[in-house]
């Protein structure tokens, strides 16, 4: 569906390449979590997928068409919610009226449902909203476009505590069918229950590219006492004891992924 083939990319005026001969394949009907330290190229990768940036070498294509060409057929199937954005000085109704004709699968039902969950109305003035409210409105619009690919850069930044659970609710409810969502975030606890697949980036390369099912099948995430650490692959002290990643033993139940622990383990090279 989305193929990133041997791309190289660097920002003008910078010495280091953000990506060098980087490849990745993303399949439909998945919610991907894109994780990485600051400056590893998470947002850059989203912009490259959306066609807002152009790789120096290699190709990024969606259903076989290069996204940098920004063809209407491609753009009506890709929507990005950037970390920072501006909305025009108009009401949401007006915004929807001028933008929805570009998205053939746009659903008013989804929009209304999302707005209801986010406790917003469609007559809000976009330029009078707080950043968190703007984000909720834009995410509601993004979900309503029903594009095959939805890219979200730090979607929970700026959201208050109830809004974070509202966000999880709307994503679970409306990311249905053959849609793919790629969430780039540092707020791992906000999204860990949503994800089907984890991608961890380090400068220029992919450290981990595995489905949650594969991870939970292979590893166990639990809290242990210090005298029970013999098979631990990675451990961190915590208030509940040591947070541990260990190989999952046969016959043992699968545990829920502790994304923060997994991220640290991968970055330390323990997995």
């Amino acid at each position, binding site marked *: 569906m989305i193929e990133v083939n041997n791309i190289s990319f660097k920002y003008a005026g910078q010495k280091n390449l953000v990506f060098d001969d980087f490849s990745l394949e993303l399949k439909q009907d998945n919610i991907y979590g894109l994780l990485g330290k600051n400056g590893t190229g998470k947002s850059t990768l989203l912009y490259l997928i959306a066609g807002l*940036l152009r790789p120096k070498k290699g190709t990024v294509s969606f259903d076989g068409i290069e996204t940098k060409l920004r063809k*209407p*057929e491609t753009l009506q199937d890709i929507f990005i919610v950037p970390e920072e954005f501006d909305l025009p000085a108009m009401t949401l109704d007006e915004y929807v009226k*001028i933008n929805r004709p570009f998205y053939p699968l746009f659903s008013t039902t989804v929009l209304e449902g999302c707005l209801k969950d986010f406790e917003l109305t469609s007559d809000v003035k976009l330029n009078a909203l707080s950043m968190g409210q703007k984000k909720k409105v834009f995410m509601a619009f993004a979900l309503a476009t029903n594009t095959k690919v939805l890219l979200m850069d730090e979607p929970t930044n700026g959201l208050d505590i109830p809004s974070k659970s509202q966000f999880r609710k709307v994503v679970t409810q409306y990311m249905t069918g053959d849609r793919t969502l790629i969430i780039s975030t540092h707020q791992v606890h906000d999204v860990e229950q949503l994800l089907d697949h984890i991608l961890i980036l380090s400068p220029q390369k992919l450290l981990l590219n595995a489905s949650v099912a594969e991870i939970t099948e292979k590893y166990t995430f639990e809290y242990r006492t210090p005298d029970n650490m013999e098979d631990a692959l990675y451990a961190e002290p915590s208030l509940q004891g040591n947070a541990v990643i260990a190989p999952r033993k046969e016959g043992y139940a699968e545990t829920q992924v502790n994304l923060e622990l997994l991220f640290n383990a991968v970055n330390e090279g323990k997995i």
Partner: protein
Amino acid sequence: MIQFNLCRFGKLVKWMLQGDKRYLIKSFLQVLVVMLLIFIFFTILINTTGDDPHGYKSCGIAAFAMVVVNLVLGPALMFYSMEGKHDMQALMLLPASNFEKYLVRHLNWILTLILATLAFFAADVLQYLIHLVLGHDYVRFVGSVIVNDMIGPIASSRYASEAFRPRFIASMTVLVIWFQSLYAIGATLIRTRKFSWVFTTVFIILLGFLVYKIQGYVEAIQLNDHSSAGDYAIGFGFYLVWAMINYCLSYRFFCRTQVISKFVNF
């Protein structure tokens, strides 16, 4: 391959009009106020003498100069209404073709020019009414001054020659298109949208020196009334082809636009 769909372009025009509504209204009001102030300044506040006793000719010159500058500089302002990278991002991500988006940005400056012309007429009517209220018997429309006192004498002089008039009008048209094409390149190449016209003007001045130097040796690029019909045709074609190449380049730069901050859009 260039993609164009009339229905989608119509949607894009609506999108642009709605998004730029405030900018267009603001532009109209700005020109209206500036024009009105200029008209009042020349016809009421200062005393002009000689062949322009009531200041109307000065108003005409000022208005005519503004129209010419707006006409020539127009394409440099094609992204002027866009606030920054977020607006560009919204445009780039809209499901329409690059060509449709490029055309709609040209439509934006053309619309601004039309609104500026309407603002000129509105300011002219307002100054007329103000003079009537003040009881001035020398009241005139600036538009009529431009037509009768400025264009009229030119039309009745050397340019009245039946043979030369079409050549003059065609030369001016092709020169305006050529200038506009250079400003179109500036608008898509230089990322500082608000000041792309400044950098392009500097470039055009430098280019002007170069063309002036070459002109002595290459007769073919002359567009004046001394050149032979053949030379004139070559010169005309030369500027037109150059302008077309500039527009193609400008479109190519637009297609390659990225949402990262750099000085030029390569």
